[in-house]
């Protein structure tokens, strides 16, 4: 290999990082957005913005369950299951849903959901079709347009590359502490390296955690060998032992009378006390093997498990419940899973994770740009003689423009499509997703012809303006604007508007820096974008690093 361990690690870090950095950027970005999955979903359905908002009330529970069951009984015929979603902090509305029997050749039946207006029996059924936050959530590990299983292997491999890049990055870093407090401006590639170091080191624990736990979320698919050893590869047997309360019973096909879910509440209370309930699922209603499951809202517990109690839907006897105690191993696994999904966290921590995710994007982006700047410096002599830059360099610069500047733009296009596309078109939700990729494709097309400073400026400014005007778009195309939402306490919607404004301003700030700087093109830009996400991070960091970075920016 190279002549020393250190040299070979540097080589490894460079290539392992560069080869997959654009996919990683998409994955990181989509993952950061997924922290606000429910909030984004709420925003993309303006029909729910007024007259649906309600808090969880324990004393209303019986009434809500009874009317839900009554409604579903009248409305559905031969449904696979019924679901009653109770209001939670992040989904502040009551809704009734049901899943039909799967059609031939389908794994899952069609799912329907209706939202209930507070204190009435009225339903909102005219909700637009949109993937909302689930688009980003799926993009995070299923990518798009390719089979999910294949995509998950690609993402897994990229994550593994990322893990190796992180470890080799730490190894080649001689002076972590010293570099942390040094930032040299306007020194071309040196500044790039510093920006890369700063964004990496600040959130290093987060990066390591999120990368490793990311592998853990799909680990049985990537590494089935322990199951092969202990269970002869019988995945189902293993899962049944892992989560006994998740085992599904098959319907028997014989009819039986369903009891009322509300009548089971006293029993639930006996086990869980006053803990809020998130949802109730009645599977195979009117079948002798019917099951009624209550799911607890775990609130701030660091756990990713679904705490549930399952009753027989005919006799009402308790069948199984999630154990309150679990083995140390299982608890560890559970904690690692929930660290990745952050389902336990309240809004402040969620925001902090989101910015750490953006720092991860900055780390990946600055790394990619650093490579391009360095190689361009190497080739500058030939380029000055009038020879074209090498193909590899042009490719990397083009991909950088497409993904680094294009992602914010595509995201704003996605939200515009959500509000502007006609409500009645076929496959509306798919069109929203398509617009995202069409926007990305257009930036890619631009990158084929022109990768200069002006392209960067154009793409960033459209993206930035798009994001800044999202609150305005929301005010025009939904029943309530940001002021109304503050008054009615719909903080999820307020937060969405504020955050998109903040990110848009960050992009515009980057362009402003770009116009005043005389540095080589990509360098200037990305440093500022990195700086911008760091700047946004200042609020949520300890004063010492904030101060150092303020000086650096």
């Amino acid at each position, binding site marked *: *290999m190279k002549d020393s*361990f250190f040299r*070979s*690690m540097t*080589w*490894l870090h460079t290539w392992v990082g560069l080869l997959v950095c654009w996919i990683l950027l998409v994955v990181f970005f989509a993952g950061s957005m997924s922290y606000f999955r429910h909030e984004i979903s709420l925003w993309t359905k303006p029909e729910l913005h007024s007259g649906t908002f309600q808090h969880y009330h324990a004393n209303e529970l019986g009434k809500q369950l009874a009317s839900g069951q009554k409604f579903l009984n009248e409305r559905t015929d031969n449904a696979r299951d019924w679901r009653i979603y109770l209001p939670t902090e992040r989904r502040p509305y009551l809704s009734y849903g049901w899943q039909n029997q799967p059609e031939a050749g389908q794994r899952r039946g069609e799912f329907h959901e209706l939202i209930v207006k507070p204190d009435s029996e009225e339903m909102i059924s005219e909700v637009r079709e949109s993937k909302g936050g689930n688009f980003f959530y799926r993009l995070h590990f299923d990518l798009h347009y390719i089979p999910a299983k294949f995509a998950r292997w690609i993402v897994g*491999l990229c994550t*593994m590359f990322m*893990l*190796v890049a992180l*470890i*080799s990055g730490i190894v080649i870093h001689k002076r972590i502490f010293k570099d942390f407090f040094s930032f040299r401006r306007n020194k071309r590639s040196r500044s790039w390296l510093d920006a890369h170091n700063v964004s990496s080191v600040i959130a290093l624990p987060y990066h390591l955690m999120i990368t*490793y736990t990311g*592998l*853990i979320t799909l*680990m*049985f698919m*990537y*590494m089935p*060998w*322990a*199951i*092969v*050893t*202990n*269970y002869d590869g019988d995945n189902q047997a*293993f899962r049944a*032992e*892992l989560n006994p309360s998740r085992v599904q019973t098959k319907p028997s096909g014989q009819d039986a009378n369903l009891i009322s879910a509300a009548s089971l509440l006293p029993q639930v209370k006996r086990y869980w006390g006053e803990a809020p309930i998130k949802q109730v699922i009645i599977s195979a209603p009117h079948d002798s093997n019917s099951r009624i499951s209550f799911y607890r809202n775990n609130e701030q517990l660091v756990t990713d498990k679904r705490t549930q109690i399952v009753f027989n839907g005919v006799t009402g006897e308790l069948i199984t419940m999630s154990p309150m105690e679990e*083995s140390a*191993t*299982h608890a*560890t*696994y559970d904690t*690692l899973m929930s660290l990745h999904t952050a389902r336990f966290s309240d809004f402040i921590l969620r925001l902090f994770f989101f910015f750490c995710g953006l720092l991860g994007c900055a780390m990946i982006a600055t790394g990619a740009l650093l490579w391009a700047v360095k190689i361009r410096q190497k080739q500058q002599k030939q380029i000055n003689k009038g020879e074209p830059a090498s193909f590899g360099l042009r490719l990397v610069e083009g991909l950088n423009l497409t993904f680094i500047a294009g992602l914010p733009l595509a995201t704003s296009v996605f939200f515009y499509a959500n509000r502007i596309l006609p409500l009645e078109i076929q496959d509306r939700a798919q069109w929203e997703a398509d617009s995202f990729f069409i926007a990305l494709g257009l930036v890619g097309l631009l990158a084929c012809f022109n990768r200069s400073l002006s392209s960067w400026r154009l793409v960033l400014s459209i993206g930035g303006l798009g994001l800044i005007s999202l609150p305005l778009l929301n005010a025009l195309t939904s029943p309530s604007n940001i002021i109304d939402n503050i008054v009615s306490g719909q903080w999820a919607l307020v937060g969405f508007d504020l955050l998109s404004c903040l990110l848009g301003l960050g992009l515009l700030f980057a362009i402003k820096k770009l116009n005043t700087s005389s540095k080589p093109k990509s360098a200037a830009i990305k440093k500022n974008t990195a700086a911008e996400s760091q700047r946004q991070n200042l609020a949520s960091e300890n004063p010492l690093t904030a101060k150092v970075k303020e000086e650096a920016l």
Partner: protein
Amino acid sequence: MTRILAAIFGGYLVAANVCGFIAALLPLPAVDATLVATMLSFAIYAVSAIRTFSLPSAMRAWLEPLLISACLYAATQMMT
């Protein structure tokens, strides 16, 4: 190039076999042993891949993971 292949495939082979070996070795209930082994396997993969690049010759980069895997596989088979 051959090293890259050795890192990706050889590394996975080592990780997979370590994973099976630990799962058989640990004196825990089967579920727990499976969880521990699977959770650790990615760290093994990373270390193994990095080691591939620090070995002096490409030959060794292939030989080592194959040998380690063979030993572990035999040990796992003996235990189950």
